[in-house]
């Protein structure tokens, strides 16, 4: 308030004198008077350097993984620690113990060392629920869990204390979709060899009389599931491991993991150095931090969240054989445990702890006070679901940590950054169910280089650097735990950590109505919806694709219209997320390398495109890619989006030593934007924007050219679409991307060009019987099994990886075959849809599973792609022949209902108003090698490329 009025100028005069003489007051250390602030800051800055060092020291000390007990023990330990071990396992939790045990079983016990910063198994039991269950969303996870359970049973039979009791697990459904999910599970269970049963609400009550049937629609009963004490299981593993010769050193922390020539070489611990060949990071909560102890940093994207377990006091007359009950829709579970109830749940939004990532080392320090307000929702759900618990007395609510990965799946496998560095982490709350299987597969990988299951969905190479960003993890891992109990809908998307990786076209596509899905962080339009695409300010809205049903999806009509545009007019799609690598060398080394890695012959005329697999020694697909020969010694590789980290890893690992220094491999994914134009008018459209002659004679199908488009130059154009439609994929340097897109879109208006999303291109390729890596093809599928034998050149003059396995398979015949099934009598409006993973029956006998499925808009039928096998009466696998496949009567079981199906062995020719000779001739999936002769363009290619002096081999 202004209280003085008149003498203002006089005051001003004085005030000037004032400020010069620093105002009659001296500023002390923490001056909070504004006038004091500046000088105070200056003052403290002089001492800042000293204090900053101190704080940095403190942070470093926290991160250095000093053993939390008795530093003086380290000296005593020095004698215990061997200077040499083949495998060093870091982390004495249940996973580490299991890995140690399995290595022991393989006879590596004497060469294995396990170090633990605290004590093996931790001090406090019951910071987990101890469910040994197999209700997992994928075949791989289910098989790993199943193995773990069998192993626990085995240990129990051998007299080791594990707390194992086979009480069965009861899974409750409160809505129709959950029931459908159970029915799908039941259908799959037959195929996966799992025993389970669908229950009516009354039957649920018979299994567990405690529950209230209010709102229960039914249940799924898994009789062979059980409960155990994770603490005891961990000690059992460890005891067995010790018996098999594994050395275990407690109170010894890891300080550094050294590598040389990209391989693990030596680890530094608080008790001394150990030379080793393999390092296994099983450090649970700290796996991400331990990842930072090597150079380069191994990225283990994990985030700890709070997780509560409720223990009641002993309850009288509680049946010790109460099953493990999971009420998914209420987000809660409970079990009987030593005469009382142990309950917990997965809240919708998890609570973060240790956001800086520094987690205390001692278990006591990690015990947080329980947050009752946070647990309230779950407690109420529990009491609603099981009314008798209202009267139960509280013993304790514990708040322990659990770690989650950004996609809520386990993380295992060899680190992409350092060879022989293995990681097994992110076991969520399912450590017991996971550990046995994980121990086995990791041991297989270490001792054999391969294992009995396809692990790509759990492999650590599914991540990019962005997934390891602390802030990304903080956002995403709030959501991830909740997903654990949510219905596993098809194409489920995360809501957090979005708008992270976007092509330059993103704003234009968003304005065009795109609804996005995320793949490797990339926002990829899944479909386009013109309704409600703007927010209240008239700006384009960011929308996330949702399916949220097992029946006809809400996007059906949008995709139908995009599909028709691609088939009849012209569609424009964003392929930017695809993995793009450049390979080049000075001499011919790049050809040598690719000939060694790829099963197809890559030494083709410059300008050709080759589809090829990169096989593993067993002939399975490690990668399925397209190679464009840009120049004699320069190739560009296009691979599925999810291969971005993985294929680099594979290539590095299998690069022959003599080529290592000479071939350059660069990941250029983020440098190019990929636009695909597809449909009958795509050639006319592109020729309007470029001077180059695009007639098939000059620019045939399956070739590459560098073109000028619009006003831009240097655009890599591939005359393929990965969908079976005529069209081009343009790989455009990012800075030209919007220009080229705008030109294409403008010029395309007269053809009524339409945006096409991922779902539309997927529908196209499924109908055309195109296999995709990661969905149809995996590390256990060979080209011979999926109708791609014609892409394998067994006679090329190099012993490429997997050649001998493929030769052998050619002699013996394949045990499974890739087929296309068209469902008859399936009403897409009312019946449940196929979403992959449906069992296939041949003459009433289970023969295999579908992989990818979709609606064929031309066939107007559900189209399933999948593999069929041939089992004899004893369950042995016999070779599968074309006659066998074609002679059967097929059915596909969708959520408990079987539909009759017609089988195809090769890509069909779809009726079209725009016949195209080349395209008709090309069949992605074929049963006969001689069909290759139908590729009439190959002769054209030689003539057009004569001037380069290249001839085909």
């Amino acid at each position, binding site marked *: *308030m202004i209280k*003085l009025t*008149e003498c203002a100028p*006089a*005051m001003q005069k004085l005030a000037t004198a*004032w400020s010069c003489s620093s105002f*009659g007051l001296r500023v002390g250390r923490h001056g909070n008077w504004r006038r*004091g602030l500046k000088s105070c800051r200056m003052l403290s800055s002089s001492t800042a350097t000293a204090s900053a060092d101190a704080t940095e020291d403190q942070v470093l000390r926290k991160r250095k993984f000093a053993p939390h007990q008795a530093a003086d023990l380290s000296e005593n330990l020095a004698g215990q620690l061997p200077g040499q071990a083949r495998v060093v396992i870091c982390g004495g939790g249940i996973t580490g113990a299991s890995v140690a045990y399995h290595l022991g079983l393989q006879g590596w016990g004497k060469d294995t060392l396990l170090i633990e910063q605290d004590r093996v198994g931790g001090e406090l039991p019951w910071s987990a629920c101890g469910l040994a269950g197999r209700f997992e969303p994928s075949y791989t996870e289910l098989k790993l869990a199943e193995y773990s359970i069998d192993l626990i049973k085995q240990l129990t039979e051998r007299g080791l204390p594990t707390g194992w009791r086979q009480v069965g697990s009861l899974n409750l459904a409160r809505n129709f979709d959950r029931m459908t999910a159970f029915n799908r599970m039941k259908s799959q269970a037959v195929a996966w060899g799992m025993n389970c049963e669908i229950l009516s609400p009354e039957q649920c009550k018979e299994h567990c009389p405690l529950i209230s049937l209010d709102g229960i629609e039914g249940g799924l009963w898994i009789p062979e599931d059980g409960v155990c004490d994770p603490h005891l299981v961990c000690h059992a593993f460890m005891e067995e491991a010790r018996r098999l010769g594994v050395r275990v050193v407690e109170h010894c922390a890891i300080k550094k993991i050294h590598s040389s020539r990209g391989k693990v070489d030596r680890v530094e611990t608080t008790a001394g150095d150990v030379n080793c060949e393999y390092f296994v990071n099983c450090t649970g909560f700290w796996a991400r931090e331990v990842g930072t102890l090597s150079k380069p940093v191994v990225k283990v994207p994990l985030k700890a969240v709070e997780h509560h377990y409720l223990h009641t006091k002993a309850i009288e007359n509680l049946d010790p054989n109460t099953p493990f009950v999971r009420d998914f829709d209420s987000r809660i579970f409970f079990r009987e445990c030593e005469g009382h109830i142990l309950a917990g749940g997965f809240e919708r939004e998890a609570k973060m702890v240790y956001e800086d990532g520094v987690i205390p080392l001692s278990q006591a320090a990690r015990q947080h006070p329980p947050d009752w307000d946070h647990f309230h929702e779950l407690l109420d759900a529990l*009491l609603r679901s099981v009314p008798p618990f*209202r009267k139960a007395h509280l013993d304790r609510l514990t708040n322990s940590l659990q770690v989650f990965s950004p996609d809520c799946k386990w993380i295992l496998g060899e680190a992409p950054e350092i060879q022989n560095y293995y990681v097994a982490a992110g076991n969520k709350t399912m450590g017991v169910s996971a550990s046995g299987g994980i121990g086995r597969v990791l041991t297989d990988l270490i001792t054999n280089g391969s294992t009995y299951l396809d692990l790509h969905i759990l492999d650590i190479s599914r991540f990019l650097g962005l997934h390891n960003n602390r802030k990304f993890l903080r956002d995403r891992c709030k959501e991830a735990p909740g997903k654990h109990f949510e219905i596993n809908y098809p194409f489920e998307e995360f809501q957090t950590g979005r708008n992270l990786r976007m092509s330059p076209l993103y704003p234009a596509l968003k304005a065009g109505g795109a609804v996005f899905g995320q793949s490797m962080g990339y926002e990829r339009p899944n479909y386009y919806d013109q309704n409600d695409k703007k927010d209240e300010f008239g700006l384009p809205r960011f929308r996330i694709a949702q399916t949220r049903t097992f029946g006809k999806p809400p996007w059906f009509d949008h995709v139908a219209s995009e599909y028709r545009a691609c088939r009849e007019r012209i569609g424009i799609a964003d392929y930017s997320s695809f993995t793009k690598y450049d390979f080049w060398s000075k001499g011919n080394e790049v050809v040598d390398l690719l000939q060694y890695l790829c099963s197809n012959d890559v030494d083709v005329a410059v300008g050709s495109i080759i589809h090829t697999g990169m096989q593993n020694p067993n002939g399975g697909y490690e990668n399925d890619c397209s190679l464009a020969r840009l120049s004699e010694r320069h190739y560009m590789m296009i691979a599925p989006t999810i291969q971005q980290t993985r294929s680099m890893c594979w290539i590095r690992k299998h690069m022959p030593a003599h080529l290592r220094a000479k071939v350059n491999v660069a990941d250029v994914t983020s440098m190019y934007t990929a636009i695909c134009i597809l449909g009958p008018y795509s050639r006319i459209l592109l020729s309007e924007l470029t001077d180059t002659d695009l007639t098939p004679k000059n620019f045939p199908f399956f070739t590459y050219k560098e073109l000028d488009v619009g006003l831009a130059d240097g655009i890599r154009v591939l005359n393929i679409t990965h969908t079976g439609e005529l069209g081009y994929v343009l790989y455009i340097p990012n800075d030209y991307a919007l220009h080229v897109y705008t030109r294409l879109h403008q010029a395309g208006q007269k053809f009524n060009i339409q945006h096409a999303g991922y779902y539309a291109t997927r529908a196209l390729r499924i109908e055309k019987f195109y296999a995709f890596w990661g969905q149809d093809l995996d590390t256990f599928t060979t080209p011979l099994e999926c109708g791609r034998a014609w892409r394998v050149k067994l006679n090329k003059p190099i012993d490429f990886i997997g050649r001998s396995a493929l030769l052998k398979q050619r002699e013996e015949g394949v045990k499974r075959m890739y087929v296309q099934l068209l469902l008859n009598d399936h009403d897409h409006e009312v019946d449940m849809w196929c979403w992959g993973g449906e069992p296939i029956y041949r003459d009433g006998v289970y023969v295999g599973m579908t992989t990818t499925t979709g609606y064929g808009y031309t066939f107007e039928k559900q189209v399933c792609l999948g593999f069929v096998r041939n089992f004899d009466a004893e369950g042995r696998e016999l070779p599968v022949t074309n006659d066998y496949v074609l002679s059967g009567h097929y059915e596909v079981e969708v959520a408990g209902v079987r539909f009759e199906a017609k089988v195809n062995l090769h890509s069909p020719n779809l009726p079209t108003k725009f016949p195209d000779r080349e395209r008709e001739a090309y069949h992605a999936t074929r049963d006969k090698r001689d069909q290759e002769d139908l590729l009439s363009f190959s002769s054209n290619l030689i003539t057009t490329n004569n001037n380069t002096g290249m001839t085909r081999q």
Partner: protein
Amino acid sequence: MWKFLINDAVAYVRGNVRDFSLNALRLLPQLPQLSPYDVNLVLRENEFVYNFPLEGVIRSYETNQLGSNSPCEDSRTEASLLYRPNGFVCGIFDGHGGAACGQVVSKRLLRYISAATLPRQVLREQMEQPGGCTSQSFLKCHNDNVDFVNEIKPIYEHSFQKYIKELIEMPERDVASELKDAFLKLDESLSNEALTSNDPRTMNVALSGAVACLVHLEGLQLHVASTGDCGAVLGTLDPKTNQWIPKKLNQEHNVDNMQEVKRILSEHPKGERDTVIRNGRLLSQLAPLRAFGDFRYKWSLDIMKKQVLPLVGDHGMPPHYYTPPYLTAQPEVQHHELSVGDKFLVIASDGLWDFLSPSDVVSLVGEHINSKKILEPMRIPEGDITLNQISEQLAERKAGLTRKPVDQNAATHLIRHALGATDYGIEHSKISYYLTLPKDVVRLYRDDITITVIYFNSEHIAELRNEYHPPTLSEPDSPLAA
């Protein structure tokens, strides 16, 4: 004179059309919108909390300050009295015409009082100690980060020593008289220093002014000495109705206070009736009717002509300045004996009272005490408890969670309410507008706000009053007894 016009306009705007102007301001698109994070940073910049380590009548105090002037013209000081167990003194000082007087008084007044309220015997003993004693010997300040510069310090120290010598000679009086005397003696020192020392800074202090509200507490005896228009209000919980009752512990000395106006008119000749107070101001210039400093309204015409006008020019003389002094620093002192129901005391500068009434303030702080319990994690009582009971308790808490305050600090809570309260709760954009107003107009909309909230320890008060009863279940849950 256009300055008068402007000031009248300012008064008019601040008094009557704040709401209207705020609406008009919303139409100005150029004001940046602050994020809630930024708002918190600004509001919490000057927060301070002190919890008394020893069992005493005062449990803790919370204080905060939000400046409008630059530099902020408000000051605050809190200190424990030495040699007096449980003695506490704190004050709020609202300066005007510059921050100088407020800052100087805020430090020195507490020192004067710490000496004045000591028994003479103790004072004498301390004086006889080798090395004697300094102005800071009798108190311990809690949030004190600054000190006077070296040139000024000896001048002030000299005045203090003179004051103590006078004190020792004087007989011991009651606290109220000692407080009054300390106020006047300090004001006298300011005058003498300005007139006798050569340092221009002392003159600057004397020409700027400050109002003060000072709380002195010893045992159950609470004294509030106030000069000017700061305010102190006591929050009492009525144990029967569980309602918060505000009790004002001072009278503001401004034109709204009829007694005060009468006093001033009676002290000057009848002929000056129309000029002494004009436009709601003393000599049509000064809003508070009592203040420290402001010697342009106290010194004789002679001093003004000889020492002031040469420095500041002829217009430094207030209009119609005939029979000085017009202004005094003499405080009004109210005494209150604490009872069990007294839970807290709020003292604040007029920046707060412009927005909130004493009863608003008491109910806001009262609610804040209750809801602060929700900020703490729930503790399950010992012994058997069923899950159902827990669930019910959690549901109750959950109902309270919606009222969970954003601020831990009650002073910040009050500032947030002062700036952001609307009929439908706290409006972030309103606070943001108040905080982003341009420097040259911000004073029209809000003054500096300084608040100190002192929490009393009811159990200790009860013990002292010898009427301690352990709380029974039938008694309503008293917020501070938990």
